[in-house]
């Protein structure tokens, strides 16, 4: 039930009809405080907040305290005013939780329930602290805990209600020593005052009352506490100090005590009203020298006294706030103080408070307080004549979007007005940070890679975002550029610079969030670590916690000396290199500004500062970040020659690319490249050659005709006219002549007749092409020195040859292998005998004149050798074949054929070896396991020849004979040779002389078996000069015959008989004695007429027995 809503009758209140207040709880306690209470209560002025929008009033009230009885509570509907109990108070001095739980709580609950039943909501619980009682008990909890309990038990159910401002401040100082009020509902107060006299309060009366109340409370506290107690309770009392200061301030403004001229008559009237309303001072303080009453009266009496008291209070409050770390509150009071100083025309005193407050707001980024304080600061700086500071603050305010357009324009105009003033000292500059005036948003280079050659033109376009509310004419915008030379860095070479490009040449500058420096970002992150401390004895955990390792970083004192608003520290750089743009009007928002410069000295140019001048005011961006650089380079002219394909092929026309980088040299009319011709390399001059001319950045291009003149020694290429820092590109065809004398070495290697060397060569080169280098010396117009260029050509073919025999008929086979990736057409193959013996004829067996040879494939050519008289011991041959790329159309020039030279020796057949196997007598077929006879006949085919004349040849009675060794070897283990498998024979050197050898062999398998090999060696006597080539140990120990056997076949180690026969062959010789040597007969000298023949072997009935006996 809210009584204030009731329409009230206009009764004249006399204090006989005092409002009824009931008292419950500890009656003795109440009786003890009653005398003081009944005396003091009427003296406390109360605010009477009246309904229906009427102004509140301050009133004094007496009340009638009666003991609480349920009957006193009004029945439903009964609203008799005079008997209505307005407030119910419960009194207790309980300070023991046990007692509280046992009795007081129940009692309180009952009381509350009764009140609730009658819808009485206005109640108060008073706990009185009794120091004497407290001392008697030891287990007493602090009083506050009882308060908290009561608050928890009873007050939470109450809805929060408005309370007097003073009250909430008192609540925060909850340790007021004598009493604590947990609930005071003001509706009862307004009810009280409703019934009080209708006194109208003059403006400021409330302020006076609050001021006096605050000071009286503070005085009371000071009276009963010592200094240290007061100091430790500043947190609770400072609110009252601040409140008193605030009220005194508003009284001062109200009574004209703060204005420059002092109070006018109206102000004085108001002051008189207020002073009169204060009434007489209470008797108990009337005689003291200092009292809140006297203080107020004095403060309102004169401008000087007010100032003194106001400053005293303000300084005391600021000091207290600062001492307990409530910096924000201190700054807020300081800002009021600054306002006061400004009113008093003392801007020099105001400045420090405004700067202090502003710094605090800036650090915490509170936009509106910043704007408001900055505005005050601007005024202050203007009065102080701090021109630079004022202009800077003005520029910050002109760009501040929290201000109105008019205010911004005003501050902008202030700057422009100053800038247009003729300066006292010409050339004097006022340097201000650019940030608030305009911001650099982006920058872009043209050319976009920010690289330009000496003499080239570079454009830099920047976007400046003007923060000013109106267009501003700027005399000049200047970029200071720092020049440096980095000669030793590869990154600064012309090659690197012209090849590496930036993505798009645009550099964006992060929009700065100033003027809100977020200090969090500058602080390091917390470094937290777990901490465990264990007992050293049993390793049990003693303590655990978290440690901050970088606490010294986080808790260090913030720099307080540096002011964020000071324009100091912005220094104007004066450099030799500047980019300038004059007479620019910066419109509000984005503006494009273009700088143009011609590159002079090579090096790196770094953009350092950006300045904009408006009259004598210079706005400076001290550092351009991220770093912006451009490079100027100088380049030496250069010539590059490189093949178009991966590798150049010899013998066919190949394209080669010439690149002339002009650098700083300008190609004039008549400039040419002079190529001294290499002997084996031709430069093919085409009818129309064209060259492309590019600028270094490849942006522009043109083409020009190329004139090429050739003489025997020199090829001259006339270059097209080209400016500096351009590139000329053209292609030429070159031809490396195959098998020319320059290729002699390779030709020899290819044409090796010796089988052994050929084998080694194959291993070494594999399938790689043989290469040849041609060096060309080129004279360039820009240099007196010749440029030597090496071109490597690969021979596309590899050639091998072989001698083939059929009895005494002889054939030469040439194999051409194409190693390249290209297909060729071969034509006109020839083989000629270079020794030019008329007797010899080479008959080609290849009929086709044209023969394609595909990539990675081979083609064979065969000639038959024919002769009529005695053949020469050796034959020198030259193979030549014409070739051209298969894919291409008719070539403009005729190509030289590919040649290959080789030598064939000892090609004439001297011996015919024939082997035959016969089944055992009486049998039709050979059987496995049964011995068969092997008949070998060695027949001499010619009389004595030149080649026979060696150490083995012996002469007796004009008959010549030589020593041969035969050996029967079966590599396929089809046959077991029984008895001696080798032997030395003396062979007459006469046509048709035949030597027969008979031996026994046993077939091990059934089927058509090839015959065992019969090998023939020349047996040289031991007194030969070459005997040292083989020593006895290797001869005996080595399983294989350490002789130059023909072919790669190894003696079969599994053939016991065969190996044993070798031992027997040499066992006749004693160890350590010189031994005879074996020499393989050249392939052409022995013809095996039975090679390839086979014998049918049929299986025996009990072949399994035989298998065991043999293996």
């Amino acid at each position: 039930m809210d009584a204030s809503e009731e329409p009230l009758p206009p009764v004249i209140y006399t204090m006989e009809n005092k409002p009824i207040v009931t008292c419950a709880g500890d009656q003795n306690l109440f009786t003890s405080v009653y005398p003081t209470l009944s005396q003091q209560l009427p003296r406390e002025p109360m605010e009477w907040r009246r309904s229906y929008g009427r102004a509140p009033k301050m009133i004094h009230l007496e009340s009638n305290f009666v003991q609480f009885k349920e009957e006193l509570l009004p029945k439903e509907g009964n609203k008799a005013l005079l008997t209505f109990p307005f407030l119910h108070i419960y009194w207790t001095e309980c300070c023991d939780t046990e007692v509280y739980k046992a009795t007081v709580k129940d009692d309180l609950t009952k009381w509350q329930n009764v009140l609730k039943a009658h819808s009485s909501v206005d109640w108060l619980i008073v706990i009185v602290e009794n120091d004497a009682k407290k001392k008697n008990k030891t287990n007493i909890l602090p009083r506050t805990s009882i308060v908290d309990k009561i608050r928890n038990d009873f007050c939470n159910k109450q809805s929060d209600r408005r309370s007097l401002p003073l009250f909430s401040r008192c609540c925060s100082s909850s340790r007021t020593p004598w009493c604590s009020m947990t609930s005071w509902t003001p509706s009862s107060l307004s009810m009280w005052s409703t019934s009080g006299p209708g006194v109208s309060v003059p403006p400021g009366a409330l302020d006076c009352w609050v001021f006096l109340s605050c000071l009286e409370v503070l005085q009371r506290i000071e009276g009963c506490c010592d200094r240290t107690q007061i100091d430790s309770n500043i947190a609770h009392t400072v609110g009252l100090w601040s409140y008193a200061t605030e009220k005194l301030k508003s009284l001062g403004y109200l009574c004209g005590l703060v204005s420059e001229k002092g109070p006018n008559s109206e102000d004085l009237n108001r002051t008189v009203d207020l002073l009169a309303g204060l009434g007489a001072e209470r008797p108990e303080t009337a005689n003291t020298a200092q009292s809140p009453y006297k203080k107020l009266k004095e403060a309102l009496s004169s401008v000087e006294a007010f100032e003194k008291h106001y400053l005293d209070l303000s300084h005391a409050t600021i000091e207290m706030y600062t001492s307990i770390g409530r910096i924000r509150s201190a700054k807020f009071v300081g800002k009021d103080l600054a306002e006061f100083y400004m009113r008093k025309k003392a801007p020099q005193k105001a400045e420090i408070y405004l700067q202090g407050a502003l710094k605090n707001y800036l650090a915490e980024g509170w936009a509106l307080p910043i704007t408001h304080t900055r505005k005050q600061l601007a005024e202050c700086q203007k009065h102080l004549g701090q021109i630079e500071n004022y202009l800077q603050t003005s520029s910050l305010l002109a760009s501040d979007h929290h201000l109105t357009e008019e205010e911004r324009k005003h501050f902008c105009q202030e700057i422009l007005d100053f800038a247009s003033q003729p300066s006292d000292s010409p050339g004097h500059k006022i340097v201000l940070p650019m940030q608030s005036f305009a911001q650099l948003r982006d920058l872009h280079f043209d050319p976009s890679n920010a690289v330009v050659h000496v003499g080239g033109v570079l454009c830099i376009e920047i976007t400046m975002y003007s923060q000013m509310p109106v267009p501003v004419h700027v005399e000049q915008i200047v970029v200071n550029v720092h020049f440096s030379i980095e000669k030793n860095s590869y990154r600064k070479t012309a090659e690197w610079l012209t090849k590496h490009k930036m993505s798009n040449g645009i550099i964006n500058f992060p929009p700065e969030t100033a003027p809100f420096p977020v200090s969090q970002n500058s602080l390091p992150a917390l470094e937290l670590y777990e901490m465990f401390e264990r007992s050293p004895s049993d390793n049990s955990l003693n303590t655990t916690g978290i440690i901050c390792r970088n606490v010294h970083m986080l808790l260090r004192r913030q720099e307080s000396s540096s002011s964020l608003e000071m324009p100091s520290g912005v220094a104007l750089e004066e450099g030799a290199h500047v980019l300038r743009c004059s007479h620019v009007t910066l419109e509000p928002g984005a503006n494009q500004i273009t700088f143009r410069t011609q590159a002079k000295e090579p090096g790196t140019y770094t953009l350092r500062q950006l300045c904009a001048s408006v009259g004598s005011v210079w706005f400076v961006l001290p550092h351009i970040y991220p770093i912006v650089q451009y490079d100027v380079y100088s380049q030496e002219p250069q010539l590059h020659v490189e093949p178009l394909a991966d590798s150049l092929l010899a013998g066919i026309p190949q394209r080669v690319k010439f690149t002339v980088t002009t650098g700083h040299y300008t190609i004039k009319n008549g400039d040419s490249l002079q190529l001294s011709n290499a002997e084996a390399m031709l430069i093919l001059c085409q009818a129309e050659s064209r060259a492309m001319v590019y600028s270094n950045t490849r942006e522009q291009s043109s083409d020009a005709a190329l004139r090429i003149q050739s003489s025997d020694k020199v090829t001259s290429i006339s270059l097209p006219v080209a400016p500096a820092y351009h590139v000329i590109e053209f292609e030429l065809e070159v031809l490396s002549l195959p098998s020319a004398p320059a290729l002699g070495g390779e030709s020899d290697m290819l044409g090796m007749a010796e089988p052994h060397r050929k084998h080694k060569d194959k291993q070494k080169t594999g399938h790689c092409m043989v290469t040849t280098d041609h060096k060309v010396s080129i004279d360039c117009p820009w240099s007196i020195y010749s440029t030597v260029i090496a071109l490597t050509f690969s021979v596309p073919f590899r050639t091998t040859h072989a001698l083939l025999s059929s009895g005494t008929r002889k054939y030469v086979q040439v194999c051409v292998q194409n190693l390249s990736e290209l297909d060729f057409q071969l034509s006109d193959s020839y083989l000629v005998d270079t020794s030019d013996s008329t007797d010899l004829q080479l008959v080609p067996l290849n009929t086709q004149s044209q023969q394609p040879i595909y990539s990675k494939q081979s083609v064979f050519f065969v000639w038959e050798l024919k002769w009529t008289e005695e053949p020469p011991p050796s034959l020198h041959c030259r193979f030549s074949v014409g070739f051209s790329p298969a894919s291409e159309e008719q070539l403009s020039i005729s190509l030289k054929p590919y040649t290959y030279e080789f030598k064939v020796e000892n090609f004439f057949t001297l011996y015919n070896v024939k082997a035959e196997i016969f089944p055992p007598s009486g049998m039709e077929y050979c059987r496995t396991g049964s011995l068969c006879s092997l008949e070998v006949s060695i027949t001499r085919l010619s009389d004595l020849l030149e080649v026979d004349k060696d150490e083995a040849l012996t002469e007796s009675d004009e008959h010549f004979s030589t020593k041969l060794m035969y050996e029967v070897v079966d590599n396929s283990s089809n046959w077991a040779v029984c008895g001696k498998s080798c032997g030395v024979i003396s062979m007459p050197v006469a046509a048709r002389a035949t030597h027969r050898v008979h031996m026994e062999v046993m077939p091990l398998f059934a089927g058509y078996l090839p015959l065992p090999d019969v090998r023939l060696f020349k047996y040289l006597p031991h007194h030969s000069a070459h005997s040292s080539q083989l020593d006895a140990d290797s001869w005996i120990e080595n399983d294989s015959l350490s002789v130059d056997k023909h072919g790669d076949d190894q003696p079969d180690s599994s053939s016991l008989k065969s190996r044993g026969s070798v031992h027997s062959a040499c066992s006749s010789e004693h160890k350590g004695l010189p031994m005879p040597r074996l020499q393989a007969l050249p392939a052409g000298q022995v013809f095996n007429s039975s090679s390839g023949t086979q014998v049918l072997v049929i299986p025996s009935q009990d072949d399994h027995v035989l298998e065991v006996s043999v293996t």
Partner: protein
Amino acid sequence: ISDVPIYEADLSVVKKKDISEHLSQFILHQSLDTVDELVWRSSHMYLKTIDSFNNYSVSAYCTPGHIKFLLLYKNKNYINDNLRSFFEIVHENYIRVLLNPLYEPNGIIISSLFDQNVHLAAKKFLHQ
């Protein structure tokens, strides 16, 4: 360490106010001093009414990560539970903002959803 505002909203129904916008910021800023002290004395996140200025009050709520929510209102019969509920809903929505991987902690909240939800919560708990 630094109390940079990361979100501000005017939740009042009546657009005409008897207090300037900058003054309300001054009051709120100053009240941070009280919050800083109360935070260490209370185990609750909701700190109730912590300050008043003339007929304005400031209620506060401090998250475990020490993000502070301040509500400035003209003395009015707000039920404590409603204020608490309002703050709790703001807290919940703030956590959602934090969960956004694109939001940098302590950065200015520009999420329109957050703003919308704060206004909805104000409508539900403060504008009855």
